[in-house]
């Protein structure tokens, strides 16, 4: 009741303030701010999820675009509606509260007022003696408090609903917004996917394939030199050695390319096992905490593995940390990865510490990456990926 009362009285004040400050609220930015404030307030009262993310309620998912502000047209519509509803809903509350206060004062202190100005209870009954004061006073307090108890919450909720109805986007607008976000992220995903394919093609073309051709050339010359008469043993041996070393290098490179596409340990052991392997292999003692992950899409697993492996490489190389931690947890539709270390901090995208690469792969899956790494440390890197398909 208290909360509803405060809300209703606040609405009255804001309704009156809207009328008084009307010229000022014609500044669109202020109007939007004013509307946003009301929306937050209304949704807090209704206990709904933050109204700044209406999409969440529509789809059960977070809007990746971040807070959605009120449309200007709706903010302007809210001005007259606010003035009206504020007064209509707030005035009864004020009367109710005011009369309780009056009774509280009148009951013990009725005699202190002049004969002509005796306070009146039940609107029109003047208090002229203790008998009236001690019967009507408490009765008025009791009745009005009961009224407030019963009527304030539904009144306040009705006001909040009107507010949200005016200020929230319609389902259609929410869907349009969601489509816009999805269209953009989908284009990003396709770009990132294309870039990834080009990288793999380039790695195979310039690396492994070129090495194989070089090996074939050396073997071909070695075969020729072998049947030369007289045979140049030293040349043949040199060519064979080159070719042998070349095959080893080609295998190493191929392994690197394969690992960058889909780490084999993930295929063998799953995400949990792969993370165990990467944390035990880390140069800095690392605590691993993997929650119940359920089934995670392979693309998400690969990015998580890549992000953790890359981040721990950074920790070992740059942070001078003595301890690190990896925590992976899952909500219905999100997978969160938190990598922390107690090192010297200062990690960011620009210093070529591999964070840019992680960000690229995370964004490709419509996820988010946050780096909190003040100079002096500690560092916390959070990756969140949607995985509720």
């Amino acid at each position, binding site marked *: 009741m208290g909360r509803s009362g405060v809300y209703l009285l606040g609405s009255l004040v804001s309704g009156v303030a809207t009328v008084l400050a009307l010229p000022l609220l014609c500044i669109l930015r202020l109007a939007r701010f004013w509307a946003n404030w009301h929306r937050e307030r209304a949704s807090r009262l209704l206990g709904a999820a933050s109204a700044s993310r209406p999409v969440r309620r529509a789809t059960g998912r977070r809007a990746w675009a971040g807070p959605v502000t009120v449309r200007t047209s709706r903010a302007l519509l809210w001005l007259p509606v606010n003035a009206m509803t504020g007064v209509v809903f707030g005035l009864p509350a004020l009367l109710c509260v005011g009369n309780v206060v009056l009774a509280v004062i009148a009951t013990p202190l009725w005699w202190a007022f002049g004969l002509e100005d005796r306070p009146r209870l039940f609107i029109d009954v003047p208090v002229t003696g203790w008998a009236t004061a001690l019967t009507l006073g408490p009765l008025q307090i009791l009745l009005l408090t009961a009224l407030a108890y019963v009527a304030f919450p539904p009144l306040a909720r009705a006001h909040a609903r009107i507010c949200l109805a005016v200020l929230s986007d319609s389902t259609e607008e929410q869907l349009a917004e969601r489509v816009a976000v999805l269209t953009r992220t989908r284009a990003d995903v396709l770009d990132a996917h294309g870039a990834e394919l080009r990288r793999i093609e*380039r790695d195979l*073309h*310039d690396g492994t*394939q*070129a*090495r194989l*051709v*070089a090996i*074939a*050339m*050396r*073997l*071909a*010359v070695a075969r*020729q*030199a072998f049947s030369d008469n007289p045979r140049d043993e030293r040349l043949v041996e040199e060519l064979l050695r080159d070719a042998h070393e*070349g095959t080893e290098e080609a295998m190493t490179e191929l392994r690197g390319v394969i690992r960058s596409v889909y780490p084999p340990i993930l295929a063998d052991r799953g995400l949990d096992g792969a993370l165990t392997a990467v944390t035990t292999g880390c140069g800095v003692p690392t605590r691993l905490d993997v929650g119940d992950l359920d089934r995670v899409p392979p693309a998400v697993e690969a990015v998580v593995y890549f992000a953790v492996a890359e981040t721990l490489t950074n920790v070992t190389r740059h942070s001078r940390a003595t301890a690190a931690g990896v925590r992976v947890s899952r909500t219905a539709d999100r997978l969160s990865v938190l990598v922390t270390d107690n090192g010297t901090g200062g990690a960011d995208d620009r210093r070529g510490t591999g964070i840019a690469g992680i960000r690229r792969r995370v964004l490709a899956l419509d996820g988010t990456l946050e780096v909190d790494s003040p100079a002096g440390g500690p560092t916390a890197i959070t990756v969140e990926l949607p995985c509720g398909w």
Partner: protein
Amino acid sequence: MRVVIAEDNVLLSTGLELLLGRAGFQIVAIADDAVGFLAAVRQHRPDVTIVDVRLPPSFRDEGIRAALQARREHPGLPVLVLSQYVEQQYAAELLSSTGGGVGYLLKDRVSRVDEFVDALRRVAAGGTAMDPDVIAQLVQRAGDPIAALTPREHEVLALMAQGHDNNAIAAQLVITDNGVHKHIGNIFAKLGLAVTDSGHRRVLAVLAYLNAARAT
């Protein structure tokens, strides 16, 4: 025979140097990009050039463009383009640049030293060396009229399109020169082509036919 090479991958350029050196070629310059290649061609006036399709900085088709540019600057300059994958479009562009030998081969062919050296000599002499895969792609897409050819005529057509002369075709298929001559006559008749003299022009006629057949 003096050769200029455009190849940015050191492994491959040293391999080529080794292989061609033993075969009696003289490598006068190895450029690692298009600009260096054009400069080297201007300076050395080589007898034949070998160009990798992908060169720095963007590693797309700089090699093809450099080869075409070099042929514009030096009409008749023989160019053998090496690639790690077959793209019929590149072959068509090279063939349409007039005069002088052209070749377009998969890098894999390099390790068949004799065939590669043979192809390089053919290009240097103003002939053609088309990769069997390019020809196979073209033949495969050529459709109906090609289907009328006998299997043997198919083989002859493919070898002819790769740039081999009658003697080489006879040797590869183990038949007589006369036999080759007869097959070629049949092929040209079935495809409705005018019989041209052997060599580059014949190859061009066949390739042009295959290209056109593909387009319809």
